């Protein structure tokens, strides 16, 4: 499922809203999530999961092409922990559905 398919599916479930408004709403939610995470804020959605940042310590890395050593500074990476309802639903349905894009 892609973002545009998500928008279409949501529009079908809210026929009182214009497709354009659903599209704006989806973009608005995504932008809010991006903003929160890039300012170090956690996101907690009950039943869905939580997003947070994990710290990566500074380390010496290597350029895989040249073998040259490079110093990599500390950084943060986004992390998602699925909530219980999502975990259970996905696992319980696994025998009925193949994984696909």
């Amino acid at each position, binding site marked *: *499922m*892609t*973002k545009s398919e*998500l928008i279409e*599916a*949501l529009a079908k*479930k*809210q026929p*009182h*809203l214009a497709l354009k*408004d*659903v599209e*704006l*709403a*989806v973009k*608005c*939610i*995504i932008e*809010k*999530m*991006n903003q*929160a*995470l*890039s*300012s*170090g*804020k*956690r*996101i*907690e*959605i*009950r*039943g*869905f*999961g939580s*997003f*947070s*940042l994990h*710290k990566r310590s500074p380390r010496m890395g290597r350029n895989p092409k040249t073998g040259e050593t490079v110093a990599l500074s*500390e*950084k*943060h*990476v*986004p*992390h*998602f922990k*699925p909530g219980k*309802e*999502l*975990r259970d*639903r*996905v*696992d319980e*349905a*696994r025998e009925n*559905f*193949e*994984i*696909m*894009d």
Partner: protein
Amino acid sequence: MALTKADFAEKLFDELGLNKREAKEMVELFFEEIKSSLEEGKQVKISGFGKFELRDKSSRPGRNPKTGEEIPITARRVVTFRSGQKLKARVETYAGAEQ
């Protein structure tokens, strides 16, 4: 304070002029739609954010960390998230206080 569904609904109310009920419903449906897609085995790719992927894990031996007792971990399907380039780049530079 962590962001919750109420914060997203408020943003939709403030910025798009949806009424409170519509805004709340939109946020509920947004996360529900992703959940049902994943439930049906369909991975979800949201450009500008990231991809929710599914993985089938086979069973493996496990251990109760408290008692040391061996218990098998059953085969299961799990959800993983891979952040997109744009989000990764925005987050990487974050250097503020720990959450």
